[in-house]
């Protein structure tokens, strides 16, 4: 995949756990334009390994001078976010992919209901710019633990002018999803980005209230979970690869020099899908791409987020 060389122009600590990075083109030229909800994959060359993490672009889609991403520090993860927090400094060069949008706004919607949890606010920040530009009707519902830990509340209040509704868990405030989704006009679309339980709750509530699938959109930024180390055999390449606990299978395959396709690296797009030739049945599917029946059949795996607990896994690669 073709990459863009960028330079870190600024780093700002938004909260104790969230840092905002401003990226500009290495040679000062314009960056590709994008649509609200797009993400990029940032390649980080750490000592001994390469991290590739997807981050939503949160700046204005019309601003091609700089890209803005925000990274929440995840202590118990593979280490990409820690690298961004501890090793990335102003002036440093990074490689990023071209923006890809797997969480785009519906152009046919009459009203947009945006629901964000925590750092899941980021894709909505670029979407709001798009919505404001076309004068679309929208509501943003933003839930977080506490005001002290919530990112961008002031910016959003200014951007959204009355369309913003905040919910602080520390003050016992919760989004009443049933009330929210049962009183929306025809042609409404709902979008959710946040932690898994929140995404599941929104999807279930909307479906139970009879919202058509087409009107429900979600982006679950699942980073590859840490698991047990295991071995995987690549049949065509004829090699066996050790996948460490805090590395995804896709990263391990890439580190071994085997070419594997990928796009979102978060279990959403399906691009990295691999055929399972043999398994003793212990696949832990963490993606949101395969259907439930496909997951049970164990014929495919998304190496960007999924792992095995079994002893034997042979892939057609």
């Amino acid at each position, binding site marked *: 995949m073709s990459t863009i060389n960028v330079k870190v122009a600024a780093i700002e600590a938004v909260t104790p756990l969230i840092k905002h990075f401003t990226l500009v083109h290495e040679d000062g030229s314009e960056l590709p334009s994008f649509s609200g909800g797009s993400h990029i994959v940032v390649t980080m060359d750490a000592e001994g390994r390469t991290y590739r993490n997807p981050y939503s672009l949160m700046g204005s889609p019309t601003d091609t001078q700089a890209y803005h991403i925000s990274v929440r520090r995840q202590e118990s993860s593979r280490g990409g976010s820690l690298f961004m927090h501890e090793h990335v400094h102003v002036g440093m060069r990074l490689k990023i992919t071209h923006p890809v949008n797997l969480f785009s706004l519906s152009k*046919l*919607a*009459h*009203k947009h209901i945006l629901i964000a949890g925590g750092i899941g606010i980021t894709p909505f920040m670029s979407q709001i710019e798009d919505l404001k530009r076309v004068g679309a009707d929208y509501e943003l519902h933003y839930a977080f633990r506490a005001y002290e830990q919530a990112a961008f509340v002031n910016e959003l209040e200014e951007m959204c002018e009355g369309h913003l509704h905040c919910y602080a868990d520390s003050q016992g405030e919760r989004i009443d999803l049933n009330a929210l*989704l*049962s*009183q*929306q*006009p*025809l*042609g*409404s679309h709902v979008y959710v980005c946040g932690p898994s339980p929140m995404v599941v709750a929104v999807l279930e509530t909307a*479906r*139970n*209230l*009879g*919202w*058509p699938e*087409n*009107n429900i959109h979600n982006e679950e930024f699942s980073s590859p979970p840490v698991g047990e180390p295991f071995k995987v055999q690549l049949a065509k390449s004829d090699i066996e690869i050790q996948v460490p606990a805090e590395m995804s299978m896709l990263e391990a395959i890439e580190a071994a020099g085997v070419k594997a396709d990928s796009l979102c690296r978060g279990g959403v797009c399906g691009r990295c899908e691999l055929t399972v030739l043999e398994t003793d049945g212990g696949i832990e599917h963490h993606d949101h791409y395969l259907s439930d029946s496909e997951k049970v059949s164990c014929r495919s795996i998304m190496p960007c987020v999924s792992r095995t607990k079994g002893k034997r896994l042979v892939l057609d690669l």
Partner: protein
Amino acid sequence: MVGSGAVLSVWLIEEINMERGYWIKSKPVYTSLKWHEKATSHLVLATGIGGMAVLKLFQQMHPTQPVKVLYGKYGQMDADYSDTLKMVVPEGLHIHKFDDALLTQFQLELRDAQMGLRIYVAGSEGFIWDVVAAAKPFGIQEMEIMKEQADTLARSVYCVHCKTISKYVTTNITACCGCERMLFVRDHFSRNLGAYMGLMVDAESPGELPAIEEIYP
């Protein structure tokens, strides 16, 4: 028959059409009406013989959520289920003589409706796509509407030359009601227009026409 260019290629496409297993993606596939389990209210529209599909819906069950049925008693085929529907649908039944009155009420219903309303339609293909067009300004996408084709197979045909739509065409070749060109009725369907594409059949050799047959009775 000798032809070339666009006219010939259409013929070739339609020749292939006859082959087993051929299927053009744009041609809608309809279903049998079945209640959505998850909904906050239901709106059922039918005309003529499409009333049978409504009766079958109520054979499945009477949903717990509010239901409204809009029925047009004059479909293309001579079948009026008004009396039976009055017995089977206990409340929320509205019977109209004409389709336009039915569609006007449909749009009034949509004006105050909220997400969770599920829409069902049974009738001729022309009626189905009239309903789709009436729902579109309310942000309802056609795939959200459950559709059962009942009544005639007659097609609405869009003339690609003068852009007029001829309604209730039952033959493979028809004269355009706008420009009077003789049009070959393709399987290529536009969901936006709710019509099949009609292409001039004798452009290169005027007056030379294949046999005209009623294949969409």
